[in-house]
């Protein structure tokens, strides 16, 4: 499979409500793709289906595995999805507030480590080496995002923008092939948003991973993404390059005349 993620006809019903209605989407390696749409369009539900928090009613979610074949991950538990290489962040920050910044990132490393109960109790050489390596790798990730100074702070003591960055750091620690960012710029001021744009592009370039992001900040979306999917009322109404989306009458209608250049 040449695409890193391929979603076909994804449908999610909550009782009588169809939150996501047969949506198709694909992401190629090292691509930055945005998923936009008005509030309540079903973007986050789509994310939750892909990352295993919900089990979709219908459709296929295919992820390319290491040997190139496609694996259908519908109904996988979230941790199994993460092991397959999809790391995500949350719209409303979901850090572990009473753990230190470094520990937060080390949780991301959890699924790549193998220490078992006896390793924990007797702390043999292998476990020690593994812990040390993990701690150092996580520290390196924090350095990349400029959070290394706060490494021993409790996550809840970080300023808002840094908490957002820490979420990305934690997702990076899962060693993903693709990063799913749910409104990474929510609540940020224009200056911070610009920094975030550079950060996301830098992550893609240095880590060589694909990025799928949900965002409302049109400037960020238009600057950053190579392709854009637009959802409204659970359905995909358009996809294409930023230029195509900008001029798509359907999209403009969905946003109720909102000036998408703003």
């Amino acid at each position: 499979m040449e695409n890193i993620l391929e979603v076909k006809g994804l449908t999610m019903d909550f009782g009588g409500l169809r939150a996501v209605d047969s949506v198709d989407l694909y992401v190629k390696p090292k691509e930055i793709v945005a998923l936009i749409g008005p509030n309540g369009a079903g973007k986050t539900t789509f994310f939750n289906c892909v990352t295993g928090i919900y089990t979709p009613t219908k459709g296929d979610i295919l992820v390319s595995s290491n040997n190139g074949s496609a694996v259908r991950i519908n109904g996988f538990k979230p941790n199994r999805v993460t092991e397959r290489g999809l790391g995500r962040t949350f719209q409303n920050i979901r850090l572990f507030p009473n753990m230190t910044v470094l520990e937060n990132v080390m949780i991301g490393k959890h699924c790549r480590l193998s220490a078992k109960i006896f390793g924990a109790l007797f702390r043999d050489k292998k476990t020690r080496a593994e812990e040390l390596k993990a701690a150092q790798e996580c520290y390196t990730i924090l350095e990349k995002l400029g959070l290394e100074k706060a490494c021993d702070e409790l996550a809840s003591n970080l300023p808002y923008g840094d908490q957002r960055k820490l979420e990305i750091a934690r997702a990076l620690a899962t060693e993903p092939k693709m990063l799913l960012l749910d409104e990474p710029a929510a609540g940020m001021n224009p200056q911070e948003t610009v920094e975030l744009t550079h950060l996301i592009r830098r992550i893609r370039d240095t880590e060589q991973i694909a990025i799928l992001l949900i965002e409302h900040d049109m400037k960020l979306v238009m600057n950053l993404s190579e392709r854009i999917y637009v959802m409204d009322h659970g359905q995909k109404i358009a996809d294409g390059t930023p230029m195509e989306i900008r001029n798509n009458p359907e999209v403009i209608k969905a946003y109720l005349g909102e000036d998408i250049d703003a």
Partner: protein
Amino acid sequence: MAQEILKSLKAALWFMFLTFPIMVIKVNTVYKTIEWRWMNMIFIGVGIFVGSFIWRWLLNRKDRPVAKKDFVPVSTRVQAYLAENPMAKRALQGVLLAALLCFPIFMDAYQINIFTVALMYIVLGLGLNIVVGLAGLLDLGYVAFYAVGAYTYALLNTTFGLSFWLVLPIGGALAAIFGILLGFPVLRLRGDYLAIVTLGFGEIIRLVLENWNDFSHGPSGIAGIDKPDFFGLELNLNQMTDAIYYMMVAFTIITIFFVGRLQNSRIGRAWLALREDEIACQAMGVGRTRTKLMAFALGATWAGLMGVVFAAKTTFINPASFTFLESAIILSIVVLGGMGSIPGVILGALIMILLPEYMRSFSEYRMIVFGGAMVLMMVFRPQGLVSNFRRKYSFHGVDERLGG
């Protein structure tokens, strides 16, 4: 200030009115007279006024933002100091150990017994701390695993004559299996719902033990259980007390050591993350099933081991030793001491077990003091006496720290 006085005054008046019938009027049914004790009303009024005023003052002080920001609890400062000065830590550990080892030389059997019980509760508290403090799973039926351990030894010893040291691991393992059995159905539950199910589980175990006469001898319990055997030595009663005390000291140290390591391991981190945010934790690649079951199983193991020790120490057990009150006491130890904090749990166990013993003269008021203390704790220090202290990593000396 004036407002505070007014509020306290109102509270005082209200209490004077409420307590009027019981504190002021005293009917003498023999002489058919009514005695009016107006002085009592004044006492209550003044008492409530002062009490309410102090209460308000404390609440205000607690909420004052300046105090909150700069305030670092003493316990945190001590822990930080000890973490930075390994020498001081070693010295403190040495002094404590020496005190524990010398204790039986100076004390009589009664004191040693009380201390042995306190040590047992420390271990139980540390075990429950894994489930409640670290993994954040409110378990109200913890005593069930304690019962499993105790009955394992009692039955295996009285029917098959198996020795204490042989049954010890069996009891722990059996309790762990029961922990997993309880864990499976409650995987999806959290908070109140989990508490109710675990409470039910604890009661089920107790009721089974109480009613299944052929198996557990019902409410009359099992008597004549062997004391532990120490290298085949013939010990008299006092020596046996000492020996069990030393065994418990060793047990406690081992438990502290292991729980400390668990806390700072990959699994311990996963427990903390699970406690903090279950969905985020799963999305970051931590398997919920495994992690939760591991917490239940490990917590239960310690209860099982202590159950075996308990049965061997008392030589008689019956279901009355494993009531909900016991679970509640162990849970209070964890909550009072500070969830997730090892020194906290130790302090909590000592307070909860030793204070009632040494304050026997106030035993009538035990429950009211206990309840009052819990309410005060929840209002003023909900995080417990000792706040949880997270390890810091330094990236110059990271090798030594992790090697410890």
